[in-house]
């Protein structure tokens, strides 16, 4: 019965075709360093899901941001767990994406025909850092406030256009509700949209080209 149902759906959606192409790929014998990409992808998924849940209670205004997070942590059932996963998952994702980049670099697997995989990966690393930077402000506590003062001030040291960049980042000359709102928008809409699109290209290329073998001595 369940086989017939699956066959009916499969005849129309081609699920087994997706399975064969995506999961049943031929791969060379590789090591644990090759799992960092999947780990990064899983962490992004985890961040997306916990982030969506946090958005149920979080309010990005200078009046409500701090209090809404206190509410999530102290009053909402399992709020501490959802925010805890998002908090630690964020650090872990930066770490894993960075290690994934190091693995690719030291195995020299960014070469032909994988240059575009590498280039999208570079942007993915930068957007991941962008997620960390924008997400850090959202609790609107002393630490996040001053971290963002310093972070935007550093961006302001760019020659000639530094002051302009600083004012664009802050949405004015000071850190304010405008800053909080634009960091929130970038954190939940702009960067995730870019990341999803680039992961699409990145993973498509991994599936299309296949993964490299571990380089041997003399390679």
């Amino acid at each position, binding site marked *: 019965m369940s086989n017939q149902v699956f066959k009916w759906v499969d005849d129309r959606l081609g699920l087994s075709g997706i399975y064969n192409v995506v999961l049943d790929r031929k791969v060379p014998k590789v090591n644990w360093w090759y799992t960092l990409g999947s780990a990064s992808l899983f962490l992004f998924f985890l961040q997306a899901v916990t982030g969506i849940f946090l958005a149920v209670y979080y309010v990005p205004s200078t009046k*409500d941001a701090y209090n809404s997070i*206190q509410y999530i942590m102290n009053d909402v*059932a399992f709020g501490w767990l959802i925010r805890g996963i998002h908090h630690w998952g964020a650090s872990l994702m930066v770490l894993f994406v960075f290690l994934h980049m190091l693995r690719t670099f030291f195995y020299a697997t960014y070469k032909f025909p994988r240059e575009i995989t590498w280039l999208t990966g570079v942007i993915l690393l930068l957007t991941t850092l962008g997620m960390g930077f924008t997400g850090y402000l959202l609790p609107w506590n002393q630490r996040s406030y001053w971290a963002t003062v310093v972070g935007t001030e550093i961006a302001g040291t760019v020659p000639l256009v530094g002051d302009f960049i600083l004012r664009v980042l802050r949405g004015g000359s000071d850190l304010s509700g405008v800053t909080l709102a634009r960091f929130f928008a970038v954190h939940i809409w702009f960067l995730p949209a870019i990341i999803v699109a680039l992961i699409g290209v990145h993973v498509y290329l991994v599936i299309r080209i296949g993964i490299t073998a571990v380089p041997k001595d003399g390679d």
Partner: protein
Amino acid sequence: MSESDGINRRQFVTVVVAAVGTIMAAFIGLPAISYLISPATKVQEKDEWIPLGPLENYPLGTPTLFTFTRTTVNGWEKTANSYGVYVMRYTEEQYKVFSNMCTHLSCRVNWKEDLSEYICPCHDGHFDIDGQVVAGPPPRPLDEYETKLEDGVLYIHYVGA
């Protein structure tokens, strides 16, 4: 592997994966659901006697509006709600206190002197001076408050959800 055990390796793996998967889904799903419904599970009990001032201040024969405000905590904020009650004195001793909340969908009714009726502006519900439904969609008469008199002061028993 013998087939005579009644279950082969493939079936065993299927069953174990399904069982473990169900347990894992419950471990993730139940906290997620309770996270979402959490605010709805916190009900604040309200039960108090609210003074409406000396009964003698209210005129005979005409419903008179009295308003008061009560706050509840929602999330990290206090929400102030305004309530209105109509005090209706029939005689010196006989009186009733009606809620101004329409029994249809909780809009606030107004006493219209020229019609001698309470009218709900939302869906044109009409109630007479005793709170009985005259016209429109309200399913029952206006709610009446339990009252008491202490030293000439009128109190209503306010029980909120």
